[in-house]
């Protein structure tokens, strides 16, 4: 359980915790009852709103012919490709930029400190207004982006939602815009937990800029980065709002992701079982990710 990482993240107090936790491991009878009592509210939520709906969903999508229908449907295949692109590009670009920008926000300048609250605004702004605004910015000649392009450079901007690649890209950019600040803050906290002496000794050893990032910061934040990327992947696979509001699946359903396709089947095409089957087909990928996440958290302590 322990590693130098943990000591770095949580300070010297951790060293003697190890000895204590073995004492703590054996709870007395009444304490065990209390521990159970503290967990009961969450356990109730978990059973009623996680276990039961999942079981119900699997039961709804139990018919193998549903999956045959899905695989035969070219829309489904395209949606899977879109989901992979959306999650793969969206999550990784976002996380990497967030990691780099957290370093930028570590700099001690007054204007960088003043910039941080503005930079966080996308996260504080609710998703609906933000994505509706993105939709209108890119709506075509009337949109702000094309207006700026023609006013400043005299270019006729593209019709963003008439081209599958541009529409998919718009979704990804909107997604990165919305969620990058949250992860930047997480990495910023992680960086602040790195003791100042490490930076100083790296400086003395002549490691600065890229070398400091590659050999000092990345190894120290590696676990945090892994955990955050896994969490973010899980959340993004289920992202519905971005695609539903920014590109609306346009042009002609070619930018749907699994979440919007499932809802489309269930509520617009009135085939709820097919909708559940479409989204449940992602489980073989998601469950291993959760297991890796849980094991990472077990074997290595991560400071969030």
């Amino acid at each position, binding site marked *: 359980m322990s590693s130098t990482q943990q000591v770095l993240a949580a300070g010297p107090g951790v060293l003697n915790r190890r000895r204590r936790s073995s004492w703590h491991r054996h*709870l007395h009878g009444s*304490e*065990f009852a*209390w*521990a159970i009592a*503290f*967990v009961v*509210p*969450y356990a109730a*939520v978990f059973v009623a*709103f*996680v276990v039961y*709906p*999942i079981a*119900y*969903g699997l039961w*709804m999508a139990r018919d193998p012919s549903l999956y045959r229908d899905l695989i035969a449907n070219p829309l489904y295949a395209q949606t899977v490709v879109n989901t992979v692109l959306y999650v793969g590009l969206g999550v990784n670009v976002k996380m990497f930029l967030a990691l780099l*920008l957290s370093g*930028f926000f570590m700099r001690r300048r007054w204007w*960088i400190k003043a*910039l941080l609250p*503005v930079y*966080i*605004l996308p996260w*504080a*702004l*609710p*998703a*609906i*207004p933000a994505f*509706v*605004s993105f939709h*209108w*910015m890119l709506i075509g*000649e009337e949109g*702000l982006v094309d*207006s700026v392009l023609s*006013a400043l450079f005299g270019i006729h901007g593209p019709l963003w939602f008439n081209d599958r690649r541009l529409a998919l890209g718009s979704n990804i950019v909107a997604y990165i815009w919305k969620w990058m*600040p949250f992860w930047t803050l997480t990495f910023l*906290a992680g960086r602040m937990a790195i003791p100042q002496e490490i930076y100083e000794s790296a400086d003395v050893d*002549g490691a600065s800029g890229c070398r400091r990032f590659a050999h000092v910061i990345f190894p120290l934040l590696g676990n945090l980065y892994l955990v955050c990327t896994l969490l973010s992947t*899980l959340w993004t696979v*289920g992202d*519905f*709002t971005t695609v*539903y509001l920014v590109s609306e699946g346009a042009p002609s359903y070619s930018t749907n992701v699994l979440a919007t396709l*499932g*809802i489309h089947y*269930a509520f617009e095409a009135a085939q709820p079982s097919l909708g559940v089957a479409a*989204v*449940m087909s992602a489980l073989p990928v*998601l469950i291993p*990710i*959760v297991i890796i996440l*849980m*094991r990472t*958290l*077990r074997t290595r302590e991560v*400071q*969030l």
Partner: protein
Amino acid sequence: MSVARTSGGPALRPRYRLRRVLAEVASVTLGLVLLIWSLTPVYNMLLIALDRDEGDIEFEGIIWPPDPSLHSFYTVLTQGYWLVEDFWHQFGNSFFIGLMTMFLTVLIGSLAGFAFGRMRSGKGWLVVNAPLLTYAVPASFLVIPFFRLMASYGLSNTLWAIIAANVTFATPYAILILQQYGKLIPIELDEAAQVDGASPVQVYRRIYLPLMTPALAAVGTYALLLAWNEYLYQYVLLSSTRNMTVAVAIAQFFNSDEAPWNYMMATAIIYSLPPIVIFYALRRYMAAGLTRGAVKG
């Protein structure tokens, strides 16, 4: 290796200074890019909301509203148009959902986080990290079974259905954060209190909660923003106009034949204000929490 760099002598100085200037220019440029990047969609919202005319937007080539007016904000606040006639009621619904989600997530999450983190039961990683299993099936994947289930729980078309869904998906992350932050608080405090005869409930209330305030603020903000960002469950589970939230009402504009987009954007801007205010109010606590962690390290 450590000496090699510093003994370079004065010959390296001008190059070093040039590099510093370049770094400064680069960081100012980056700052400007980030400013534009963060504010453009917000500016776009204002641009549309400040337009005086109802109906179609004629924004071709326009990057500043020709005749800015607060007329649309006035219309929304006085509920002067049929699509916004229940605005204040729906606003109240959104508030209720947000605050209840925040409260229940902090309560349930801190109870479970306390039990998992402080009263180690030795059941290992599987039990302690079990909440994360929730994320094996993303929220949007569960909405269809949820829709059916809420009918059997007698919660269909109620705000509690939304709150239940939000709490379900906010709590696992809350427990994770609280457990991690809890490691910064010495377990000796709990033990000392126990020696003095404090029951687990007293340890939870008198020691755990006060010391965890920054983390609780972070988790509460997270839950509130999750509720305020959430759209799918509200869209699927709430059917009557009276039970609708502002998020659903905004999306309703897309379904209507008329297109008062300035009203829609005005609604969206007003809807955005509460979480922004609460977020910046709680940010001090969050920052305090983060830096305290840093000081400990």
